[in-house]
């Protein structure tokens, strides 16, 4: 809310230093976001939280300043005049829920002239001057917090109706725009037409202009929900709707309306001719709440004397009805409808006592109950994911974070038809929840390829989502990706194996299989259950997403990894030398390397491992053969192997390989 210091000063008779006022308000809970000097006045821009509708008025602000300064405000309530009865027309409230109470005052024979008198106060609050009548209603709105509306009485035909708009009923506002309404809009109408969008804006057809002679002054209570719906439907947000949405005081309404009528009489030279009301004025009584002073201290962690608590509450307009050995019966002021519970009283005392005067302490909380809960077990997943993050970064992969929301159409291209859709998306690019981490990876790789970043490994740990028979499924997953050549496929495979080894998952294997959208795919099995896959993104998807390089991608389920993770135990290693022998092999492309691996590893307990140390291409190698050098490692657990022993094992392997069809030893 915007307001000026001069306006506030009307109700305070003690000196005010603008920057101290700003600070005091901020620490009372009304954060002053800016303070600007304008001539001999100061403009405050403050954030009013939704609970403090009373601060949307100058007297509310003045009350707060007075309270924190230990002073009183100077406020004269106008004398309420509700006679004679306004007899020219009836007021019918057809929607009692939308408008519980409606009042009208008629003032005859006014002179319309430029604002003048209230111009400074209005501009301080951010409104332009229109004319003396409109300015007076706005002045009273800012002062009391109750929006009012002045109609040109001669433009109203017959009775007044407060009703829901008909579907497609049109309304031209004083902003000269035409709005097509629905029954969600609450309106003020006469016998023929809509004359105001209730609580939001008046209509052009009944506005006060330079020829206006007679005023019909509306003061009403509208339902905050009704106004909220109505102004949202119309796409409007006005000073008036802002206040109605946050509640307005019914008691203040009488004062605001009376004062506006008095001022119109004074500055518009009119005569008050009648008052009429419809509906019932909501009862506005302060709430009575019992408060135990030791509970206050325990709740806030302070030591506050009864005198101090009492004087704080009094300064805020609370009445101490009863004082009884450490107990107060407190009655809240009528303008504080937000006070409902004893903790609201604690807050009132606490914020004036000063949160910054409360000492800091560290509590001890027993974790026994928490540890017993399944929620605690689920929470362990956070640590597991962090462990994976650290390990993958050690493997030179870079963690990414991509949006969980994706384009439904793109998901369809990936073969994901039944995704969870967003009912109210901002844009079509983000209209569903992703069932895979693939598209985020593709986008990341594509972005980085633009900067010539090939062969960089990325990973993401995030949830994937799908519909379930009842409700939904949300599961954490790990994706890894590298753009580049076939060697990167082996790097990815190596990374998967390293992860499984690191987690000590027990048995695992990678087996060739079909995976949608991928060529050359391997399925990863952990304890004989599928745990994920890796593969080369196929050409169709590559082209659709505009990827220029091959993407090697893997996605693993995190839950299955976590469930199979086992404590590590030390495995003894051989203390004897490790020796190797190389064999140069050309292998027919019809035969998989697995065949060679099976022959070699089938050769007994001294085989420690095998490795490809070199690949070879040349004229002497048939084109349907892969040539490479295989290095075989030998080691014993109990002795140093002699060179004769190694020679003899190696020769056996050579002989077996030599007999295998499709294997040429070079």
């Amino acid at each position, binding site marked *: 809310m915007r307001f000026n210091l001069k306006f506030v000063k009307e109700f305070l008779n003690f000196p005010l230093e603008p920057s101290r006022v700003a600070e005091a308000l901020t*620490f009372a*809970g009304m*954060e002053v976001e800016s303070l600007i000097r304008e001539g001999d006045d100061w403009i405050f821009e403050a954030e009013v939280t*939704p609970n403090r509708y009373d601060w949307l008025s100058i007297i509310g602000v003045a009350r707060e300043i007075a309270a924190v300064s230990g002073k009183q405000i100077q406020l004269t309530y106008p004398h309420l005049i509700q006679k004679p009865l306004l007899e020219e027309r009836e007021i019918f409230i057809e929607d009692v829920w939308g408008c519980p109470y409606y009042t009208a005052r008629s003032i005859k024979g006014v002179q319309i002239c430029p604002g003048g008198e209230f111009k400074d106060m209005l501009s301080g609050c951010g409104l332009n001057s229109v004319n003396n009548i409109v300015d007076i209603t706005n002045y009273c709105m800012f002062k009391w917090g109750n929006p009012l509306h002045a109609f040109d009485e001669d433009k109203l035909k017959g009775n007044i109706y407060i009703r829901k708009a008909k579907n497609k009923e049109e309304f031209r506002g004083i902003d000269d725009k035409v709005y097509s309404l629905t029954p969600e809009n609450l309106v003020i109408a006469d016998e023929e037409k809509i004359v105001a969008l209730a609580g939001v804006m008046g209509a052009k057809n009944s506005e006060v202009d330079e020829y206006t002679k007679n005023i019909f002054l509306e003061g009403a209570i509208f339902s*905050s*929900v009704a106004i*909220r719906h109505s102004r949202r439907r119309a796409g409007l947000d006005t000073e008036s709707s802002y206040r109605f*949405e*946050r509640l307005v005081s019914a008691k203040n309404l009488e004062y605001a309306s009376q004062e506006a009528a008095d001022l119109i009489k004074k500055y518009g030279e009119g005569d008050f001719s009648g008052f009429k009301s419809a509906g019932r004025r909501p009862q506005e009584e302060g709430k009575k709440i019992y408060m135990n002073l030791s509970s206050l201290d*325990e*709740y806030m962690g302070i030591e506050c004397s009864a005198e101090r608590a009492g004087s704080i509450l009094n300064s805020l307009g609370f009445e101490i009805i009863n004082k009884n050995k450490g107990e107060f019966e407190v009655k809240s002021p009528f303008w504080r409808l937000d006070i409902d*519970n004893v*903790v*609201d009283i*604690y*807050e009132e005392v*606490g*914020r004036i006592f000063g*949160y*910054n005067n*409360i000492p*800091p302490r*560290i509590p001890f*909380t027993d*974790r026994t*109950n*928490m540890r017993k*809960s399944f*929620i*605690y077990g*689920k*929470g362990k997943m*956070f640590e597991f994911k*962090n462990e994976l*993050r*650290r390990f993958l*970064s*050690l*493997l*030179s992969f*870079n*963690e990414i*974070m*991509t*949006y*969980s*929301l994706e384009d439904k159409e793109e998901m369809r291209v990936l073969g994901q038809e039944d995704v*969870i*859709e*967003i*009912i109210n*998306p*901002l844009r079509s690019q*983000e209209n569903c*929840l992703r069932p895979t981490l693939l598209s985020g990876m593709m986008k*990341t790789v594509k*972005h*980085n390829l633009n*900067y010539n970043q090939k062969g960089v490994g990325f990973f993401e740990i995030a949830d994937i989502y799908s519909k379930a028979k009842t409700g*939904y499924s949300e599961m954490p997953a790990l994706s890894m990706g590298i753009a580049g050549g076939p060697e990167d496929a082996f790097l990815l495979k190596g990374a998967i194996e390293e992860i499984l080894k690191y987690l000590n998952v027990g048995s695992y294997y990678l087996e060739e299989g079909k995976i949608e959208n991928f060529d050359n795919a391997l399925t990863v099995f952990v304890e004989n259950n599928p745990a994920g896959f890796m593969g080369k993104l196929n050409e169709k998807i590559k082209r659709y997403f505009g990827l220029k390089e091959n993407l090697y991608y893997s996605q693993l389920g995190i839950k299955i990894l976590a469930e199979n993770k086992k404590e590590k135990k030390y495995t003894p290693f051989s203390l004897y030398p490790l020796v190797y022998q190389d064999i140069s092999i050309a292998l027919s492309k019809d035969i998989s390397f697995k065949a060679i691996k099976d022959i070699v590893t089938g050769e007994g307990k001294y085989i420690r491992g095998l490795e490809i140390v070199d690949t070879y291409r040349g004229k002497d190698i048939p084109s349907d053969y892969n040539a490479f050098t295989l290095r075989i490692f030998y080691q014993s657990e109990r002795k140093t192997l002699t060179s004769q022993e190694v020679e003899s094992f190696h020769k056996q392997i050579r002989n077996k390989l030599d007999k295998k069809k499709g294997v040429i030893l070079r």
Partner: protein
Amino acid sequence: MEKEIERIKNRFYRDCADIKDISGAEEIRIRYLGRKTELNTLFSKIPTLPASQRGSWGRRLNVLKEEIARRLEEKINAISDKESKIDLTFPARRPPKGSIHVLSSVNRKICEIFKNLGFSVVEGDEIADEWHNFESLNIPAEHPSRDVFDTFYLDIPAGSGGKYLLRSHTSTVQGWVMKNVKPPFAVISPGRVYRPDEVDATHSFMFNQIEGFVVDKEINFSHLKGVLLEFAREFYSPDIELRFRPHFFPFTEPSAEVDISCMMCKDKETQAGGKTCSVCKGKGWIEVLGCGMIHPHVFNACGIDPSRYRGFAFGMGIDRIAMLKYSINDIRFFYSNDIRFLNQFPV
């Protein structure tokens, strides 16, 4: 004898100067210090000399032998220095390195601090229902306080907790934990949250939050202050100050917003330079989180008796905290995953 010595000496100096490499040096060593050398021939003549001269000639020959050995060693050292010298002004080779996303590390660091204060880490689903996101948190359907919680709704058939949505804050875990665990508990819960905000330098429809709350019999506002102060001093720096401003959140009462003293301009020198600090806009304070004592309505909704238990809760935006800590000026860097951004934060 005198002449012989001088001749060997001079010839050695000449030969030594000509040495080019280690093998050349070896050749010279054999020539002068080997078994069959002129020097050894001279040594063998000593017994033929008069007894009175033997001592002094012996000493002179030994001096020469030592001189040759010393010079040769120097030469060899000089050569090997030259041969093995590498030019370390050539560029370094980069050991391969990976990285952890800066938001993940900030999440981990923060959770670590709270774990040390006795909190347990809990992770809730990002998909939530209206009960967890709103009702349980005392945010009624038709209240302006819901405005700041605009939410993405999902096409999953509504369940007993109302419509399904993407949680707009991590406070959803409050109801989940309170309904399932008997107090006391202290919980810290990080995760992704979603709000329909257009993306710009400071807004994103997806971002990260951390929620914390403690429920026990004797919890009070000063505990909230103590825990947050401890966190801030551990996370930022030991001399950081906190400022609590009264605020409003439907799920806490009393509520506060917390500012930290600006770490950018705590050095007053920089302020004296006449420039306004771009981080705190010259205010000296930066808003970092919201907090308060858990509202009795929340306890009631979750089946905890507010006359027996009290609690506090707080929530903070991790993106914002990381932006402040690392001077990152655009939230979009977190989600565009440029390698030049990622590898600035290896862990």
